[in-house]
Every structure is written in C-alpha cells, then in structure tokens.
C-alpha cells in the first residue's frame, strides 16, 4: 500500500497532466497548476506524517481487513502520545491536585494547570481562568443552561436554537425553558440545508435572551456563520453559547474574535481523551453564573449555615476532576499546535472533495447538507437501501462509519428520513481509504439491491 503522500501527489499530478494536454491552457495557468501540485504534495506528505502518530490506524480487523476509520465526527482517534501521557501520570505522579502538601501533588497540579493554559492558547483566550473543565460538551451546555434558567431567563423570554442542533443543545434548553417559563424558538433551515438567515433575522427580537447555536452540524456538515450571528444576537441583549463539538477539530477557534459568551467542546473530538470537556466563558458571565454542582474544590469557606464559593475557574469544578484526562488533553493540543494545521485542513478538504465526487456517481445516492462551504463529513442515504444494512456490510469490510439519526431526531424528522449514513474525515485519513470506502459502498449497495 502506498502512502497518503504519494497518492495525493499522484492525484495532483494527474490533474496537472490532464490540464497540460489541453492547448487552451496558457503559460500562466500551467504555472498555477505547478503551484497547486506542489501544495497538494506538501499537504499529503504532512498528512502522512501526522497519520504515523496514530498507531490504532494500523489496526487489522476480522479477516485481516485493514481498519478504515470514517467515524471521526463521533470520536477522533488518539495519537500514541496520549496514552503515553496518561500512563506517565498514573505511573509517576498520580495524586490529587491543588491541596496536597507533597511533591506528587505539586507535579500533578502543575501539569493540570499547565493544560488549562494550553487549552486557553488553543482557543485564543488570554486568561486561563476562563477555561473550565467539565465532562464534555453535553455537561458544559447543561451547566450554562441550568445556571441561566435561574438567573437570566424569565417568563416570556425566548431561547433561540437552530433546526440542526444535536440533542445536547436542545434538551438542556428545553429543561431551562420549563424551569423559567421561557420559550424555545427554532431557526429553520433553507433549501440547501443551511441556516435560514432571513428567518434568523425575523425571529431575533428583544425577547431573545439566549442564542444557543452549533458551529458545525454533526449530521449535515453545514458550517454556520457564528461570529456574525453572535454579534447580532448580542446587540439584541442576548447571551450566546456556541456548540463547538465538531468545530474544535476542523476550525481555528479564536474566542476573542468570535465574541461568544460561552464556547463548549469535548476533548475526545480533538484527539483527546473521553470524559473531558471545555467550557470557555467571558469573565463577567462566569462570575454571575451560579455554581452547577456543590462540593470540594468549588468552595472558599463552608459553614452549616452557608458557604462561599471559590474564584474562577474552580467555582465550576466541584469534586476531583479527570486529572489524567485534562493533562492528556493538554499534551494532545501541544502536539496539534505544532502541526501545520492549514496544510492538514487542505488534505482533509481533498479527501472530502474526492469522496463527494465519487459518491455523486452512485445511483440513487443522496448527499445531505449544503453543496458548498461544508465541513468534512458526508451524510447520505441510498434509495431502496436501509442505512443499518449498509453500516453492517461496510463494517464487515473493515469500514467504520455511523448510521442512524446522529442524535438529531427533530432534524431527521424534518428531512423526512429515519437516519443517514455518515462518513467523516480527519487529516489522518488517506485518499486510498476514500477509494476503499467508495468501492465497499458500491459492493454493499449492489448486494442489497440484487
């Protein structure tokens, strides 16, 4: 099997040669072609080096089928340095943090707080105290929704979400509305399955007290213009939460230019461990938001009559946190920030383009989400074929992807389907894997239609 590097170069070379044969192409264009070729080669080469950091991608499954992992939107794979970091923590300096009067505790605390600074750098946040560790995106959203339901939302207020939210960005707000008497309002999608911006303008009003919006849809791959919508909602007096669960690994997050009141994501989507999430909040918001859970770490003083709460970021970190996981996330993000993420993103787009092109030739296959400006996941259905059957047949060929409603039942209902198959890519995937997937899909479809 050739490497991703040579395959990417081959593809770019083919394109360059095909266009060179065309006499209408002038000198300037062939120069552009050469540059594009060099760029594609560099991207594929860098992606191949990146892939080498992930030992699990060399796995062989039943019947010696090489693993083709295309379920990245559900969870990314992990570089070897993550398990090395976790192992080092447990073998060398396992200890509780912050209060221990011994050397292990100091080392663990230093590593844990170092990870907080790394996360802050990763999302362009100048103050690490605004980074709160939680279990994941779901807990982060629940924390904010629960707090706002008692301090910010009142009867008659409106919470605006979109028609492409994950259940994790629907249900906590539904619960907050039930508690506060606010109403949940849903921004519909347009025909291209993007957010309907005209409807957004219409629905936004002084009653809008919260906008909770997904950056990249996990079911469609649509990318929302979050910074713009955030500014508009804030101008109306609303607080804005951005669900960056998918965006954290595909976009460059800069919370300062984004301007959102809260940004939430999960470590496991960005090559980190499960069980760790990040909640960023603006200082004035986090200071007025009530604590979510009471317990150790989050307090200053405890009396039987009352307690005073700790400062940020400890106020929202009750109990012993996932110390190893947070340190692991820090190590993974340090590694990621050393990569040329622009080149990696370019390779990722090459994968998506190749896959979209090949899938569009499969008869009866329908791709969901916008045709342009989409993230690297492809959600599709095949006429006359059930997604569950496809998932099983692809699995038996070593190809891992997701089938079902992707935790977006209202969205699936509005599209009039039970669910889709979703192939999702990260830069460690190769062009060969795209081809193996497309061939495996065609074989499965033929078998199910026969």
């Amino acid at each position: 099997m050739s490497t991703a590097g040579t395959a990417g170069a081959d593809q770019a070379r083919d394109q360059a040669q095909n266009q060179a044969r065309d006499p209408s192409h002038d000198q300037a264009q062939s120069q552009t072609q050469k540059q594009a070729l060099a760029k594609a080669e560099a991207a594929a080469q860098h992606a191949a080096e990146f892939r080498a950091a992930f030992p699990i991608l060399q796995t062989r499954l039943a019947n010696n089928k090489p693993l083709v992992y295309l379920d990245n939107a559900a969870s990314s794979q992990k570089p070897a340095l993550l398990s090395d970091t976790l192992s080092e923590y447990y073998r060398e300096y396992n200890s509780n943090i912050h209060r221990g009067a011994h050397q292990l505790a100091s080392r663990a605390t230093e590593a844990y707080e170092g990870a907080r600074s790394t996360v802050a750098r990763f999302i362009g946040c100048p103050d690490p105290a605004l980074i709160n560790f939680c279990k994941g995106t779901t807990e982060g959203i629940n924390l904010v929704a629960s707090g706002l339901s008692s301090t910010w939302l009142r009867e008659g207020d409106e919470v605006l979400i979109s028609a492409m939210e994950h259940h994790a960005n629907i249900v906590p707000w539904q619960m907050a509305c039930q508690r506060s008497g606010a109403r949940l309002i849903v921004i519909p999608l347009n025909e291209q399955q993007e957010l309907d911006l005209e409807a957004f303008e219409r629905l936004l009003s002084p009653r809008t007290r919260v906008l909770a919006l997904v950056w990249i849809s996990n079911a469609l791959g649509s990318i929302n213009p979050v910074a713009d919508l955030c500014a508009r909602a804030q101008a109306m007096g609303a607080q804005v939460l951005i669900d960056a669960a998918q965006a954290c690994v595909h976009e460059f997050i800069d919370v300062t230019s984004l301007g959102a009141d809260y940004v939430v994501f999960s470590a496991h989507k960005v090559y980190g461990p499960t069980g760790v999430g990040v909640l960023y909040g603006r200082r004035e918001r986090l200071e007025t938001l009530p604590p979510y859970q009471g317990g150790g770490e989050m307090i200053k003083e405890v009396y039987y009559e009352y307690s005073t709460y700790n400062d940020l970021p400890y106020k929202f970190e009750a109990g012993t946190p996932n110390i190893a996981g947070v340190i692991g996330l820090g190590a993974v993000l340090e590694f990621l920030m050393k990569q040329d993420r622009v080149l990696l993103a370019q390779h990722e787009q090459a994968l998506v383009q190749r896959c979209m092109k090949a899938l569009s030739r499969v008869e009866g296959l329908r791709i969901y989400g916008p045709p342009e400006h989409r993230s690297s996941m492809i959600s599709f259905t095949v006429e006359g074929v059930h997604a569950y059957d496809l998932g099983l047949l692809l699995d038996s060929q070593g190809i891992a992807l997701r089938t079902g409603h992707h935790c977006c039942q209202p969205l699936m209902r509005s599209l009039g389907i039970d669910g889709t198959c979703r192939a999702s890519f990260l830069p460690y995937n190769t062009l060969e894997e795209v081809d193996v997937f497309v061939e495996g899909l065609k074989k499965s479809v033929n078998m199910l239609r026969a």
Partner: protein
Amino acid sequence: MESPSDIQEREREIIEEFSIFDDPMDRYAYIIDLGKKLPAFDEALQRDEFLVPGCQSKVWLIGALKEGRVILQADSNTAITRGIVALLLRVLSGQPASAIENAPLNFLDAIELRSHLSSQRANGLASMIKRIRALASGLDGHRNPRVSVQNEPVNDSNQPS
C-alpha cells in the same frame, strides 16, 4: 410429524450451510438472500403493537397455534435483520411451544452471527428471541390476548422444504 429434536436438526443444517463461508460479506449475502425468501408478511399486520421492542430495525412478529404447534410470522424493514428473522423462524416456527421455550439456539454463536453484531444489535437479537419465547408461552397457556387477531389460517412455508 416432527419431533421436538427437530430444532437441533434444523440448527445443525444451518451451521453446515454457513460453514462454507470465510468472508463475512458472503455470509451476509446468504443472510440477505434468506430474508428475501421469507414468506410475504401482510402489510396490514405491520402494526406497532406487533413490533419487537428494543430492536434498532423494525421487526414485526406474530404467532398462532395450529395443531399444538406455534406458527410464527415475521418481517423487518432492513434486509439483514429480515434474514436473521428468517433463520430464527426456520428453526422455531412449527415447533411445540415447550420446545421453543427451551431451545438453546446454539447455532447463533456457531455461525458467528452474534459476534459480528454490535452490542446494540445483539440486544435486538436477544429481544427477538425473548419475544418469540413469550409468544410461544402465551399461546401455549392461552394467556396472550394479542394473538386473537390471528384467526386466519397461517401457512407454515417458513419451514425448510
């Protein structure tokens, strides 16, 4: 007339048929084919009350008692599940209720069916078996009111020819 040991005999046949497959794709092709041969299920009976709970795919299951034997009819909206349903019916339909309730169904492991299913799907398979056993037990003791809709004669073409 069939004896209760028929279940084991039918399981043995299935194990033998599946023994020729090395590639799971071939095994699935065969399962899908078995599903296609499942006798037509009346669309009017695709009612929610006959759905097996706990399955990711939709599986409808009904049964009737005929001369002391339980005749099962079933269908699914997905091809592979329909094939799995066909295998279960081939082994269990037409057997006395007591035999159905006690059948160990070892063939499911022997043909490596369970090991290739995700835990969610394996749970679905377990739900199907549980439902078939409950149906048999209900028919046997005439305790299950749901079967009363099944008045028309049911052919037992589920069985191997």
